[in-house]
């Protein structure tokens, strides 16, 4: 005897939406994966890949144009105003970008996820307090606070990481909380509760696994924001102090020579853009793949 199984009712089977998203899902975001792999490999093996010293240059070699624009193969992307090899600096700069992104999203993601789970599960005044704190977070102009902190404490890698953690945790908390509010109504949560499971156990064993998907999506979509924020802070001088190469500060260093040596600032900017496009496309793909309902979530 077979148990009657309810047929899934497919509304608008003809709909363009469904066909379109299926077509899109089949394709892996190959270009994103390639760009990100290249980036991570450069970050890890920077000293082996970079042909020149990233912090020291020869002043006699300043403003040599990139190879395709009249330069030599010794400096494929040209040199900056201190004669440092731009390609080597970009390769080393990848380290800063990768470290900053991983730490900011790791720490910010954990803090935000925990707060989101607690907020959604506990409800009541706990929820109210946490969500109001998140509101405050979103109302603070981070870049200005960052400048103030850079003045008072002096720019450093630690400060930069702290600021970026502060930038991202709120997004995780909000999205995770929304997801938890749905999960809490599930029968298995009620079942666990009636078996006498403690709130901590329920949150850890029954709710946390359910929010991993959304955490992955928010995390990927936030990479772009983190990279851009890091670049902006470095550009304004509140990032990693020189001479350590960071892409944002490379753009800043070259901007005074834009009329005579465009490559010094425009090339690192292209690299930032490539990275952000790659993670954005990957994030969109991941979101559609895990749950098309999440389409409203923008980076």
């Amino acid at each position, binding site marked *: 005897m077979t148990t009657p199984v309810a047929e899934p009712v497919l509304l608008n089977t003809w709909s363009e939406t469904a066909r379109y998203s299926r077509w899109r899902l089949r394709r892996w975001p190959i270009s994103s994966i390639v760009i990100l792999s290249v980036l991570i490999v450069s970050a890890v093996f920077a000293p082996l890949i970079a042909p020149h010293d990233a912090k020291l240059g020869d002043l006699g070699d300043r403003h040599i144009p990139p190879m395709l624009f009249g330069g030599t193969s010794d400096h494929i992307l040209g040199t900056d105003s201190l004669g440092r090899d731009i390609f080597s600096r970009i390769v080393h700069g990848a380290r800063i970008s990768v470290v900053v992104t991983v730490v900011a999203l790791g720490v910010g993601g954990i803090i935000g996820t925990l707060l989101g789970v607690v907020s959604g599960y506990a409800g009541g005044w706990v929820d109210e307090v946490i969500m109001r704190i998140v509101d405050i977070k979103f109302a603070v102009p981070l870049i200005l606070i960052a400048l103030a902190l850079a003045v008072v404490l002096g720019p450093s890698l630690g400060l930069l990481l702290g600021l970026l953690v502060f930038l991202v945790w709120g997004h995780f908390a909000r999205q995770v909380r929304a997801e938890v509010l749905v999960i809490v109504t599930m029968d298995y949560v009620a079942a666990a509760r009636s078996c006498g499971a403690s709130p901590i156990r329920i949150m850890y064993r029954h709710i946390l696994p359910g929010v991993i998907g959304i955490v992955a999506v928010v995390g990927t979509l936030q990479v772009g924001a983190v990279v851009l924020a890091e670049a*902006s802070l470095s550009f304004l001088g509140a990032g990693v102090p020189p001479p350590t190469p960071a892409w944002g500060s490379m753009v800043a260093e070259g901007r005074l020579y834009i009329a005579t040596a*465009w490559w010094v600032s425009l090339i690192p900017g*292209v690299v930032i853009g490539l990275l952000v496009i790659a993670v954005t496309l990957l994030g969109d793909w991941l979101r559609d793949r895990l749950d098309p309902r999440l389409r409203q979530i923008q980076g």
Partner: protein
Amino acid sequence: MRFLARRVIASIVTLLVVTMLVFGLSRIQGDPRSLLISEDATQKQWDALGQELGLDQPVYKQYLLYVTNLVKGDMGDSTLQRKPVAEILWSRIPNTAMLAAAAFAFAILIGVPLGVLSAVKRGGFWDHGVRSFAVLGQAMPVFWVSLLLIYIFAVGLNWLPASRNTGWTSLILPAVALGWFGASGQVRILRSSMLDALDSEYVRLARGKGVSARAVIWKHAFRNALLGPITFAALTLASLITGSIVVETVFSWPGLGLLAVQAVSNSDYPILQGVILLTTFVFVFVNLLVDVLYMAIDPRIRIR
């Protein structure tokens, strides 16, 4: 009404938190007297100034004094220019407001039509073109776009001025650089909410009734797709204020952002603090305005 009251209280709390932060930072930075007084001042003069500034009081009283002064519009004096901070800020506001308004106008005038176009022509040539424009606008750092525009239009073609405010033409490049980012976000949000609206029952009903394609798009779909984009427009306005710091730096546009960055290099903390407080106030105010607007558009929110 309860909704509104809660939002107002939340806004006030936000402002208080930021003032505490700014106040705390100024105290970490050191004794404010050391910047105001000459090095050969006597202990007596030092103590007198401390009394005048309220430094002999406990910290919470100092904070209260600080907030009272802020409410009165007194933000202290610039350490470099020796003029009241409020006066200096006031003189910079028109430039930043002009830049933000131009960029916002660019973002809306370009973003809204492109977003609708992209949704209506989904999957076609225009959709791909518009989406590339949007992805690029959100991926390229604003300062890079600014430099690129300078390189093309000021250095290469020599059509537009590259820096400072020398008449209305110098507004064009910074406004485009700043507005592109906002336009891109607007395109993405509007496209997805238009797609949802176009796929809805009421739009299909309207189409079935024989309503013209144009009326369906603008009257039925567009109006219902507006809620998300309106919030986003307000957030764009807020992000324009922050983005203007970077853009003003690149274009040497004499607004609040440039003032803040210069304050950083001059270690002129009172000025920086003034810009932070003013920006936060605008930020919070805009958010509150959006909530009120939301309430007016979507009656369901009023019940909460």
